[in-house]
């Protein structure tokens, strides 16, 4: 059944039903604003709480207590008057706050007074030799299968990379009876020292105890190789082995599945295509939107909450969602804002939720050799462009990612730069001796997700067309 939006205009449209979006939509609707929540997935939860209403995993301890927090958020949303549409792909948003959304193969246009983007994070590209081989996938993709279908690897499996999600996934796979042969930890040794000054905040954060016990749980069952400085996948048309260097020693092991993960970065495509100003974040090594304390972006009426506003994790995302929604309520219906928790209270909650983040960002800052590839390693999967191709184009005059399109079509394929954008920026910055901020990023264009020509042809005619017909 196709469920089109009930109205053409809303006070608030929230895009994405992860922690930030769920909290924002519930808050906005509770305050009486007409609220529409559009989400691409089949049910609420986003990535962190994926399949929260439908997961076949019933033993709560297997996915962990943090996962089930999502159920309460969904509960409050359902208790509110927010209109919620799933399988709804927003493919265009502009500075007039006009939104185009595809639902069940049909597109509709809605207009908002305020838009709260809660489009979350993407996994950072991990462009090592062989990363495009079948048999290599991201940890996030593996976790999606685990949460929605309780599917875990049963062949020879290696997980490589770093970051909290890597350990969480490993623990979840093991609890569900899956197989992991080895974990290759790529955390740079120097990062431990760099992170030390921030350790106190981390020790007193909720991440600490949970993170530590999860790592202990995994290390008790799986061989963990730390200090990995080189990593390559190889095979003839299919992954066959993983080769790595740790402590100066190279080892090659046969594998069926390699899961890669080196952290997440804001999913910026929709915000950038709407014209929201972003800046390079030198700690998190990604583009983050320029926002005020309430999450308002450079485009009037567009706020951003959750990991799309800069990686902060699920707890921070929930609070950021409430802050952005409260700001929308203050702007549109000040009188009803009194019902909601005070902004000052929310900001204290946010500071608490963000505690320890700098430590994690510093510790898990990926090493250059895993972000900036060389030689024949593929950078752009869609157009099969290698690192060498990019450098050759720089040598004959390509100055930034947009100019590179003219030489190599990078970023012009179906992924719209999601899988290559950061790599291209950092690679070109290094080659040209400039900062990533100076090099810039692809100018992103709608449709942010492809739609079929037939679907576009079927949208309701514009006023001009209708008038032309009436006039005959």
């Amino acid at each position, binding site marked *: 059944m196709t469920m089109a939006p009930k109205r053409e205009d809303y006070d608030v449209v929230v895009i994405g039903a992860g922690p930030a979006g769920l909290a924002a939509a519930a808050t906005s609707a509770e305050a009486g604003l007409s609220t529409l929540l559009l989400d691409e997935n089949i049910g609420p939860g986003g990535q962190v709480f994926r399949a929260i209403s439908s997961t076949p995993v019933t033993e709560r301890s297997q996915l962990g207590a943090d996962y089930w927090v999502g159920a309460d958020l969904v509960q409050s949303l359902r208790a509110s008057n927010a209109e919620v549409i799933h399988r709804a792909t927003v493919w*265009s948003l502009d500075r007039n706050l006009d939104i185009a959304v595809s639902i069940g193969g049909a597109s509709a246009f809605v207009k908002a007074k305020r838009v709260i983007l809660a489009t979350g994070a993407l996994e950072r590209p991990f462009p090592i030799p062989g990363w495009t081989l079948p048999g290599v996938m991201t940890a996030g993709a593996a976790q999606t299968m685990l949460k929605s279908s309780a599917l875990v690897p049963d062949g020879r499996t290696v997980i490589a990379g770093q970051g909290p999600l890597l350990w969480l996934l490993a623990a979840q796979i093991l609890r569900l009876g899956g197989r992991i042969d080895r974990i290759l930890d790529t955390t740079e040794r120097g990062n431990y020292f760099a992170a030390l000054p921030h350790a106190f905040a981390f020790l007193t954060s909720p991440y600490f105890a949970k993170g530590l016990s999860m790592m202990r749980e995994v290390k008790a069952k799986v061989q963990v190789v730390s200090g990995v400085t080189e990593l390559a996948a190889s095979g003839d048309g299919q992954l066959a082995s993983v080769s790595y260097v740790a402590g100066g020693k190279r080892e090659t092991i046969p594998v069926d599945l390699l899961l890669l993960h080196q952290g997440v970065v804001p999913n910026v495509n929709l915000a950038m295509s709407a*014209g929201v100003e972003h800046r390079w974040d030198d700690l998190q090594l990604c583009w983050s939107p320029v926002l005020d304390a309430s999450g308002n972006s450079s485009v009037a009426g567009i706020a951003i909450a959750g990991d799309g506003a800069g990686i902060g994790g699920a707890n921070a995302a929930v609070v950021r969602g409430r802050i952005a929604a409260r700001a929308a309520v203050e702007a549109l219906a000040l009188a009803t804002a009194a019902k909601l928790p005070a902004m000052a209270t929310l900001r204290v909650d946010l500071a608490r939720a963000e505690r320890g983040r700098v430590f994690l960002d510093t510790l898990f800052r990926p090493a250059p050799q895993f972000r900036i590839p060389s030689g024949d390693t593929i950078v752009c999967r869609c157009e099969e462009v290698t690192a060498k191709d990019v450098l050759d184009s720089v040598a*004959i005059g390509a100055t930034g990612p*947009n100019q590179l399109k003219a030489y190599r079509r990078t970023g012009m394929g179906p992924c*719209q730069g999601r899988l290559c954008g950061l790599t291209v920026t950092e690679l070109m910055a290094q080659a040209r001796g400039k900062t990533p901020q100076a090099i810039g990023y692809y100018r992103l264009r709608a449709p942010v997700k492809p739609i079929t020509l037939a679907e576009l042809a079927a949208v309701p*005619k514009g*006023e*001009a067309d209708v008038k032309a017909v009436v006039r005959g």
Partner: protein
Amino acid sequence: MSHNVDAIVVGGGIHGCSTALHLCLAGLKPVLIEKGYAGRHASGVNAGGVRQLARHIPEIPLSIRSMAIWERISDLLDDDCSFESFGQVLVAENEGELAVCRARVAELNALGFTHEELIDAAELRRLVPAVAETCPGGVVSRRDGAANPAQTTTAFRRKAEQLGTTVREGVAASNIRYSDGLWHVDVGTESFAAPVLVNAAGAWAGRIAAALGEPVPVETVAPMLMITSRVPHFIDPVVILRGRKLSFKQFKNGTVLIGGGHLATPDQDRNETVLDWKSLATSARTVFELFPVMRDATIMRAWAGIEARMKDDIPVFGPSARHKGLYHQFGFSLHGFQLGPGAGAVMAELIVNGGTQTRIGDLGIDRFHPSTRSKKRTS
């Protein structure tokens, strides 16, 4: 710091780059000033049509001059610009439209132009097998084709620089003034002086002309384009419709570019455009009707370039009517890409020789200032 050069070209579109390159070929050392980067706007993001077909008569001589350069573009630029020549076809969707085509071709023939050729339904079907069966014919210009606009503009810029052009990108030209027989232009902390100034600033050129006392009726527009995913090869020539707003081109890699002149809302000061999806949906419907093979293709991306359109739809090209050493090259009104190579060559002739064999008389800025027409230029 002030640099003396032979000419100052403002605007790094295909026109400014081509003029700079041809000035170098004539032995001059120009500076090219571009506020963004070469090809940032219309020149880099247009449909890439290399078209003599369906042009306004006053610009046909320039278009023909340009076509000869396009056909040897690699010789000029050491880059093929992905130029390919499968012709361009204007499709008549009914007998009424075909009659208009017939009259047009007759008019051109009477003027001595033979590049447009009337075709019947059978020839149309041979050239464009995928077109709807009901179309009775059209017009073909067989030497026409298409090129990659960003690649082309970039190649012109690169070659111009190799031949001696000083390129300044990322800072706008400002404080344009004339004193002591020279044009002076500031670029950030630098300043350039030259006896010649070429205003090739595209959508921003009208402001420059007006500031120099030559206002013209020009508006800023942003024609939209969209490109599809790869579909099996089904069409070679560029196709445009006589009646409805549509142009259509399949590239070697299978992607299909859909254009036709529906407009986005430009924001010139932000260098941005806001797309009008309801108009793009109209284009999608036209393609859906005419090319059933396209129905399952996906739209990958849509965009719009910011450009200048003159009230009379033909460019402003030639010397200023008021100032010595000032030349205008803008207002190409959504059809300037093909003209770029030829216009640069002709502009260099005007600057270096004081005249050209190519007929461009109807394109001068004096057409908007009748009072200046026969008067001697001042200053």
